[in-house]
């Protein structure tokens, strides 16, 4: 048989065994190529130009290369180790190391660049779909056109060729270090020695769980007022990160084994077959993969967390816009408001106008505060906007009463208030004591006046007049009136929004359209979601593949025990039962730990991003779990083959 025939045969068997590797490779190339095509596509300017999306997409493609590169190098290492026997045999029959290297190199060259071409083609054909998804998410009205970008193709080939060279370099180094004897023995030397638990392991086991729980606890306290000031907050976040990551590592290194050991002890030697097949291998193998599992768990937690947060933000865009823009359209200059209403009238659009005069007053709210001092806020002298109850239909107050209006979760986290008490409005000459009697959820004026989400104090009309005489002119804003315009018939909102765009606005931030605010947030968050989503997907596929490869190796090493068990009379179905359980743990533990991490991460700060936690987070987690489970199922199928072949 000539070397060429040898290469060809090897290639065919490898293709059969490592279909998942080829799939992952094609998938990564396709994803990268689609991304780069996007980057070079002229129709992307609409997305990129408006929000500096190009930088985002470029960063994403670099990260994608990093993920894919690490994956390929890692997978390559697994493969070359697995083939060590064959390589040893080649050397045994007198091939030089460079001939062996040439065989291995040519084989992977064909496999690699074959996948590269298929991947590029696939990437090209799905890039339009991807672009459509992006346009849809960001709300950019643009038709996804498609043209083959030579530049994108060149860049893809170049990047993957570099990865290939690095791969070959690592193979060469590996071959060079090996002696024939060592090559024959690699498989057995990677096994973790079976032995009893030491006291140190018990300690790592307990510490692992403790660290993770401590991290979770601190994260739940993060914004509850326990940490005041930016510096403490930042330190607390670093501490959480360190605790959780180290805890995860120790968890895999010791805790899993420790917990399983407790269970095993309680059985006093009377294990059933499920225990035998699942438990014992988990106990001894999870340890040796601790580093890998930690990385996979942490990065997937990061991906799920970021994706949840951006989806939360995207999902609550409308609510957030309502908090910041109190009416469909808000103005703070009478002139601009009038221009707009005239335009509305000529077009026959019905509207309702609310006008509030807004004062800014220093207020002492110490008496009604639940939490002590927080951040840069001085509760004895906080500047808050004040309006009269005159313009609000549902509020009637007596002269010495006041309420707060406008209250969101974000504010609640930072400043929680009692339901009643005394507040003091500090004027130039005198201080006015008012009875605080409650809270009203809606924001009556827009964020220009509320400093981006502070509550508005509503007082009686006389009190307001009295206050106005005594205000500190230094505190007052340039524009003192809020004009809110609500469109009566919501179907005419779009038309009104078009008219709004024609109104000349002097200062951009003083007037706003709620529709535009919500759309721009959707656009920002849509792009973030898109990028994080695709990176997350790439990571999911590659890490799923790595876990699967690990399971393939493990299966090969455990085939011997399956042979024994089947000789003793256990059927392959009996064994598969235990193996399913084992895979449930093998894939389930990293998944559950990753999900828990991301849950606590999201939980600690989601209110900074939006108003709805559960729906978006569960959606992201659900999709992730389903995709991830596919790899678990594939590994069970692989085990079925191994068990069938074991007797």
């Amino acid at each position: 048989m000539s070397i060429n025939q040898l290469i060809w045969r090897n290639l065919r068997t490898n293709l059969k065994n490592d279909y998942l590797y080829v799939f992952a490779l094609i998938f990564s190339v396709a994803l990268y190529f689609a991304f780069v095509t996007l980057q070079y596509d002229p129709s992307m300017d609409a997305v990129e130009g408006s929000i500096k999306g190009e930088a985002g997409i470029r960063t994403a493609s670099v990260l994608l290369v990093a993920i894919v590169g690490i994956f390929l190098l890692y997978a390559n290492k697994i493969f070359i180790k697995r083939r060590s026997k064959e390589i040893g045999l080649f050397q045994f029959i007198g091939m030089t190391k460079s001939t062996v290297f040439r065989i291995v190199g040519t084989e992977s060259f064909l496999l690699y660049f074959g996948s590269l071409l298929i991947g590029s083609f696939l990437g090209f054909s799905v890039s339009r779909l991807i672009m459509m998804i992006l346009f849809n998410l960001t709300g950019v009205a643009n038709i996804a056109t498609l043209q083959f970008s030579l530049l994108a193709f060149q860049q893809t080939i170049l990047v993957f060729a570099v990865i290939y060279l690095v791969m070959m370099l690592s193979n060469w180094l590996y071959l060079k270090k090996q002696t024939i004897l060592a090559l024959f023995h690699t498989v057995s030397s990677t096994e973790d020695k079976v032995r009893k638990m030491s006291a140190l392991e018990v300690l790592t086991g307990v510490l692992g769980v403790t660290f993770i729980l401590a991290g979770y606890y601190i994260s739940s306290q993060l914004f509850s007022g326990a940490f005041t000031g930016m510096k403490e907050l930042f330190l607390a976040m670093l501490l959480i990160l360190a605790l959780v990551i180290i805890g995860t590592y120790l968890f895999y290194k010791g805790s899993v084994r420790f917990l399983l050991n407790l269970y095993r002890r309680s059985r006093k030697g009377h294990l059933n077959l499920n225990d035998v097949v699942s438990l014992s291998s988990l106990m001894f193998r999870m340890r040796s993969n601790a580093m890998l599992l930690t990385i996979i768990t942490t990065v997937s937690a990061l991906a799920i967390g970021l994706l949840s947060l951006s989806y939360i933000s995207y999902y609550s865009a409308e609510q957030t816009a309502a908090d910041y823009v109190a009416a469909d359209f808000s103005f703070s200059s009478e002139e601009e408001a009038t221009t707009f209403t005239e335009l509305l009238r000529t077009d026959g659009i019905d509207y309702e106008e609310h006008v509030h005069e807004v004062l800014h007053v220093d207020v002492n709210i110490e008496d009604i505060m639940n939490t002590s001092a927080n951040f840069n806020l001085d509760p004895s002298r906080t500047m808050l906007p004040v309006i009269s109850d005159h313009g609000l239909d549902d509020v009637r107050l007596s002269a010495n009463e006041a309420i707060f209006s406008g209250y969101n979760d974000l504010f609640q986290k930072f400043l929680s208030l009692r339901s009643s008490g005394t507040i003091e409005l500090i004027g130039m000459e005198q201080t006015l004591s008012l009875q605080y009697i409650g809270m009203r959820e809606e924001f009556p004026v827009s964020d220009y006046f509320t400093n981006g989400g502070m509550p508005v104090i509503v007082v009686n009309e006389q009190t307001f007049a009295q206050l106005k005489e005594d205000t500190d002119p230094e505190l007052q804003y340039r524009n003192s009136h809020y004009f809110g315009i609500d469109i009566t018939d919501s179907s005419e909102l779009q038309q009104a929004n078009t008219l709004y765009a024609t109104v000349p606005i002097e200062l951009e931030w003083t007037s706003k359209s709620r529709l535009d605010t919500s759309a721009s947030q959707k656009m920002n968050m849509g792009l973030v979601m898109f990028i994080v989503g695709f990176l997350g997907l790439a990571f999911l596929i590659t890490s799923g593949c790595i876990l699967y490869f690990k399971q393939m190796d493990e299966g090969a090493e455990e085939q011997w025990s399956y042979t024994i068990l089947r000789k003793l009379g256990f059927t392959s179905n009996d064994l598969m039962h235990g193996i399913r359980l084992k895979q449930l743990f093998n894939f389930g533990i990293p998944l559950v730990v990753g999900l828990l991490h991301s849950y606590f991460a999201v939980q600690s700060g989601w209110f900074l991003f939006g108003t709805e936690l559960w729906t978006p987070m569960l959606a992201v987690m659900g999709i992730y779990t389903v995709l991830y489970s596919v790899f678990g199922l594939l590994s069970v199928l692989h085990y079925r083959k191994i068990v069938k072949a074991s007797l």
Partner: protein
Amino acid sequence: MPIVEARKLHKSYGNKWNKQEVLKGIDLQIEQGEFVSIMGASGSGKTTLLNVLSSIDKASSGSVHIEGQELTRMKEKQIAEFRKHHLGFIFQEYHLLDTLTVKENILLPLSITSLPQNEAEQWFQTVAKELGIYELRDKYPNELSGGQKQRTSAARAFIHQPSVIFADEPTGALDSKSASDLLNKLSELNRKRQATIVMVTHDMTAASFSNRVIFIRDGQMYTQLHRGDDTRQAFYEAIMQTQSVLGGVQHEH
């Protein structure tokens, strides 16, 4: 009635054009409580015979009955079930699971019975003490010597009180001291428990521990020797004589 009965056993490997006949019509009967050795040169078919008798391998034709049940007619699943409940195995390479302790390995066959845990514990203690490995119960196989491993494997074969125990070269990987230790234990258990043992070996010393030796040559039964009331030494010499007649060219090792 014999506990193991084989009739006209044939076994061949390969395909139509290239057929290798390993067993050529073997008839065999083993009584309850017997300790039988099967001897023969490499390639004589003794291990194949054991595999077919113990249902690990399927016969090409002929029948095997154990306790009156015909194994050769059973379905894959029934066979596995039967093996679990009625047969015990001792292998040359011990076949212990590395990730389980001695005790867990031994208790494995009981995991499928509905035996209450304290009774299982009782059985374990008895058999482990008889084989002198009770003190090793919490050790892993890689901490044991070959002899200890094989005694663990024997304990696993005996614990569920199977009808027949099949041993494939149990002393093959042991030094002579551990080997005779093990064989002493086996024949002791054979007597005490009335356990039926079928052992394949090419070691004459090992064979001399049994009640009967069956010699296989080229896939057929060549002859058999009964120990009767002979001493082990006398039986050993008888075996040696037969072996030398049988041996000739095929003398192994």
